[in-house]
């Protein structure tokens, strides 16, 4: 499974020229708050081990980066079987804990967090236990509350109060597929040495190819270029939907 990063605040033309790769806020010398969730957010670079399901209304990113599994080698960090932002965002969504105190939500996060070195084995176990057809984990139907929903989860409250059942009760005030998409956190920074693919709108294919060649210049590895369909513009939604195809093609090769 590749690691999937969506630079929500930056465009391909900018981030593809960063000499040091992806940097955490702390690595960029930006201030990081003292609270535990702020420390978590500020000191790591975040990825999904799964479809690019990050969403912000004001996201400007026009590309998604897919890193090879080998990018984790020698790195420190952690993982969780859900997006920690769903517990930590200004309006938390992961029920039934979203309405509890920060301390309670941090405790819940810690119960499910694991070291970076342990996540792939635990992910394989989790896939087998959660899905009759583990392949469905990659589904990116446009309804984010239903897409790839597991058949069962531990704890069961996650599916009771989030996803399709959660939406029926709470509308969009609950977690969507971020409740079951694994989050991977790498401490401090990650270079572009192990980029596996760059995913852009079709009209930027040439720019993405040039960016991939620049990455090859430094790493010796040639990232693949993946594009949306002709006429399809890059938004968090279109990149999310097409990320299933990209992941399937990368995993199969």
């Amino acid at each position, binding site marked *: 499974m590749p690691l999937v990063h969506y630079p929500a605040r930056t465009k391909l033309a900018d981030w593809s020229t960063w000499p040091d790769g992806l940097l955490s806020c702390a690595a960029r010398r930006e201030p990081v708050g003292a609270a535990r969730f702020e420390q978590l957010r500020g000191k790591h670079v975040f990825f999904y081990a799964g479809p690019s399901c990050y969403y912000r209304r004001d996201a*400007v990113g026009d590309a998604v980066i897919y890193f090879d599994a080998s990018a984790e080698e020698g790195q420190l960090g952690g993982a969780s079987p859900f997006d920690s932002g769903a517990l930590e965002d200004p309006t938390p969504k992961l029920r039934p804990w979203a309405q509890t105190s920060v301390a309670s939500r941090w405790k819940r996060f810690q119960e499910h967090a694991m070291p970076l070195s342990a996540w792939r084995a635990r992910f394989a176990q989790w896939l087998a236990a959660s899905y009759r057809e583990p392949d469905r984990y990659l589904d990116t139907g446009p309804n984010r509350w239903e897409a790839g929903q597991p058949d069962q989860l531990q704890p069961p409250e996650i599916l009771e109060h989030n996803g399709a059942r959660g939406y029926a009760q709470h509308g969009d005030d609950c977690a969507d597929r971020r409740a079951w998409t694994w989050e991977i956190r790498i401490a401090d920074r990650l270079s572009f040495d192990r980029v596996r693919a760059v995913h852009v709108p079709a009209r930027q294919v040439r720019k993405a190819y040039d960016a991939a060649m620049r990455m090859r210049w430094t790493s010796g590895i040639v990232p693949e270029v*993946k594009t949306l369909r002709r006429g399809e513009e*890059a938004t968090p939604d279109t990149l999310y939907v097409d990320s299933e195809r990209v992941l399937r093609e990368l995993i199969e090769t």
Partner: protein
Amino acid sequence: MTTKGTLNVQTDGLAPELKVVGFHGVMASDETPAKLGPVYANAAGCLTRIVEVGPTPTTPIGKIRIESFDPPLRDGEPLPGNGTRLGPWSARLGNIVMSVGPDERRKIAELRRYATTHGTAVVQQFVEWFAGRKLRSEELQCERQNEIALWYCTAEDGFSLLGCVHRMVKDAFFAAVRSQAPTEMEEMAWWLSRAAVDDHDIYLAGAALRRIDSPAWEVLVREGLHLPKKEQWKEGLDEAERSLEHPPPVAVSLPAPERKSPVIGTGLSRERSALRDLFTTPEAA
């Protein structure tokens, strides 16, 4: 805060309570021609998303279901996200934003010729405006931003414009093929890939890049067609190679004959009608 509700839509597709205030994405001058998705705002200036178009079980005929997001955009305020302001213009369901730029402007004589012979009446008017210097046309609902012209138009007119641009680009492409100049072939191949109206254009562009030993050719074909396996490309590339070996003579002002698209293994070739379908926006589908 999100507000949900319905708005009226007239039988001609006009949604009087909606304005087009931008498009998704940001255009660069070397990325034209392109079809872009409109961004809407309601009468209060709040960004608005069309959820569905009636008639459906939950939305009556003559209505569209929308979601609007507070607060209203201030005048001149950039769109939140990856988008570009334009207009505002009256919104019409099914309309799109077409962009053409300096590459197309350099060939304006050829574009005018094809607009006259193959474009709709509105496309002809747009091309005349594009050939001029005016910054904006309220009647056509188009404007210039730097060197790029942005036109809020019907899907039919947008497809017609693309068809005219495509013919012009294809002439330039085969002129480059006949010249055998690698740099020119490379530039024209990428331009053709952006102006493509069917799979054969993607194969032509890919085959041209392959001829000049550009390793980007595989990316262009694979992603241009979403066909991941090389064996799926063989027939299309073979036909493209035959076209490159025997390029058409210098273009004359004659209607282009209908061209039969190849069948390529398990990936079905998209006919022009299928590409036309890509011009249908979701709310009009």
